[in-house]
């Protein structure tokens, strides 16, 4: 019998993190993953992560994946790919399929880190080709370079729907709407804002009535819902689309734990059937642990820390780590995890909407209900100020654990402080040198450099631009407002693509000065337009 100290099932962020931690403690660890590539969902996350430096803030998901793999390799962790764990049997035995054979292996401890799968929604027409999970669309685009379609409706306004919605735009798809039955956007306001200023409308309190098509989606009808989730007659809206992305939540893939006899509980706040665990991930069956999404849907950052905590706990359990050492290590990790679980979107605050931020600023209902901050609201936040010369305008209005902007500015213009959920403050008397690092570092793409008075009645706005093709200096186009409305003519002054920006190009556009605090996106003029010079 192949016997190991620790068998980890799932080489995603949680499983790998646990394996690394255990390997550092000297354990013999093997990780089984059914996929051809490790990293779980990390490699398709092309956006920059939130949190603080210890959480890999501002680093793109796939790079975090690369780092994790390197660390695992260096620690001597064995990752067996194309290895599907078919069952978890008594005595912590697994049966693994590899190629055309199966083999048995046993662990003194087993960690299940199998993640989660996407939920479906059964509206009429949902089985038509063209209805696809948002996660699946993301895999298709970001790992395989294939667009799921051309015109897409996104159902679901949680972070998955918002992030994937934006990635669909980046891939060259048209996103006709983000729809959600809830009355408010479920994910971060900054993710919604990225979409809104590109012209994507939000239809909250709406759901899909039906998808149409004979052998493929050709259109979709949505309708408003009342308080009992019934469609209000007369509110139907139709879109011609060929793709409907469904982002209606994830469910833990906890079947192995259930099979092994762990006490399970159906917890809607954690996404479904999860094992009953303590803080180290220990289940009710001795020697079996769980970490990451399988123990409760959260995100990659928390999954990684949970993995490390479990790894340390298992090392302690098997005598590879002295209990004092483990307690210290776990204490550090729990502090790091706790830092992520704060703010408006913290698991403990799910379902509630505060009226004010921690600082006492009004929480923008416009942002929550339409996906963008209104012009007058914006000034309520400490990141948005008027100043002479180029200065940073940080349109960050919700308390989320995130602070890379603070470290990005070498001139001390941006301050968040000890509490990383605090809204960033643009410090009044600091001297901005327009290096653009803050713009590029913001995972929410919510920072702009504005020179309100650039001369001749114009202003310049520097914005993060993650689209291809990258416009060249001199390109004419239109400035879009936060709500995606074309509000003025705009000309590209420059586009900076510097490796330190990590593919967040900084586009500086010249707009009429009354649009300095309103224009937040650039749309190039159509190729055949005969535009007059911007006056």
């Amino acid at each position, binding site marked *: 019998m192949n016997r190991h100290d620790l068998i980890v099932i799932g080489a995603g962020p949680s499983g790998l993190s646990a394996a690394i931690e255990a390997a550092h403690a000297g354990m013999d660890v093997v990780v089984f993953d059914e996929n051809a590539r490790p990293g779980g969902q990390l490699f398709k996350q092309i956006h920059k992560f939130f949190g603080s430096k210890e959480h890999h803030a501002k680093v793109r998901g796939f790079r975090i994946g690369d780092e994790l793999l390197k660390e695992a390799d260096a620690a001597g962790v064995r990752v067996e790919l194309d290895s599907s764990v078919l069952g978890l049997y008594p005595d912590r035995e697994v049966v693994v399929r590899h190629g055309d054979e199966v083999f048995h292996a046993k662990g003194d401890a087993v960690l299940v880190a199998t993640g989660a799968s996407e939920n479906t929604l059964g509206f009429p027409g949902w089985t038509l080709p063209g209805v696809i999970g948002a996660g699946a669309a993301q895999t298709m685009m970001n790992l395989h370079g294939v667009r799921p379609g051309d015109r897409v409706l996104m159902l679901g306004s949680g972070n998955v729907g918002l992030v994937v919605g934006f990635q669909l735009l980046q891939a060259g798809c048209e996103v006709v709407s983000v729809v959600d039955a809830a009355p408010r956007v479920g994910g971060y306001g900054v993710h919604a804002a990225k979409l809104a200023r590109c012209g994507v409308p939000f239809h909250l309190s709406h759901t899909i009535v039906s998808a149409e098509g004979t052998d493929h989606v050709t259109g979709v009808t949505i309708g408003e819902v009342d308080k009992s989730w019934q469609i209000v007659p007369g509110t139907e809206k139709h879109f011609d689309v060929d793709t409907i992305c469904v982002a209606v939540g994830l469910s833990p893939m906890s*079947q192995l734990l259930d*099979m092994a006899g762990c006490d399970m509980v159906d917890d809607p706040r954690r996404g479904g059937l999860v094992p009953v665990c303590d803080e180290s991930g220990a289940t009710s069956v001795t020697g079996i642990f769980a970490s990451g999404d399988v123990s409760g849907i959260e995100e990659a950052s928390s999954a990684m820390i949970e993995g490390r905590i479990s790894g340390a706990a298992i090392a302690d359990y098997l005598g590879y780590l002295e209990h004092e050492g483990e307690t210290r290590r776990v204490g550090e990790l729990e502090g790091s995890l706790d830092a992520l679980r704060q703010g408006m979107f913290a698991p403990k605050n799910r379902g509630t909407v505060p009226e004010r931020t921690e600082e006492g600023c009004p929480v923008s209902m416009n942002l929550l209900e339409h996906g963008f901050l209104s012009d007058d609201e914006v000034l309520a936040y400490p990141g948005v100020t008027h100043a002479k010369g180029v200065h940073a305008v940080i349109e960050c209005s919700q308390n989320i654990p995130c602070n890379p902007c603070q470290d990005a500015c070498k001139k001390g213009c941006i301050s968040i402080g000890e509490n990383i959920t605090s809204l960033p403050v643009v410090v009044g008397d600091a001297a901005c040198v327009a290096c653009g690092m803050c713009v590029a570092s913001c995972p929410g793409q919510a920072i702009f450099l504005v020179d309100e008075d650039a001369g001749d009645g114009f202003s310049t706005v520097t914005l993060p631009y993650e689209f291809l093709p990258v416009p060249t200096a001199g390109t004419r186009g239109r400035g879009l407002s936060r709500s995606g409305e074309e509000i003025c003519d705009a000309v590209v002054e420059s586009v900076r693509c510097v490796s330190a920006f990590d593919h967040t190009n900084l586009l500086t556009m010249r707009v009429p000065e009354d649009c300095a605090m309103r224009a937040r996106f650039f749309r190039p003029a159509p190729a055949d337009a005969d535009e007059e010079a911007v006056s």
Partner: protein
Amino acid sequence: MSDEAVRMTTNGASRSFSPAPLDRSRGLGDFVPAPDDDVLVCRCEEVTKGDIRRAVHDGMYTMTEVRRYLRVGMGLCQGQSCTKLVRRIMAAELGVSPAALDAETSRAPMRPVEMRVLGNEEAAGGADAR
């Protein structure tokens, strides 16, 4: 009676048994057709919402019973896609919260596997043995 024998009679989960008595005589009222009864819920076995609702009215009050009665969740994906939907539909029909319904017993194999592969067990031991 020995513990062993008592355990042997528990055919369901190995978890501690805490029954919730349920009298099946209580009817649910007449079955009222709904406009979306023909929407597919389990696409692997082509079971509609109406099928599930009718099954509940036939007396199938647990997920386990509905699954065995209709084959919903018995197809290729073994309920990965449809279980939550079925739960919601059943719960609505029964007037309970979805969390009140039973959870399905999870079984190997976690992925469909050919007989020739499952029967092809690599010999035990080798370099990995401690």
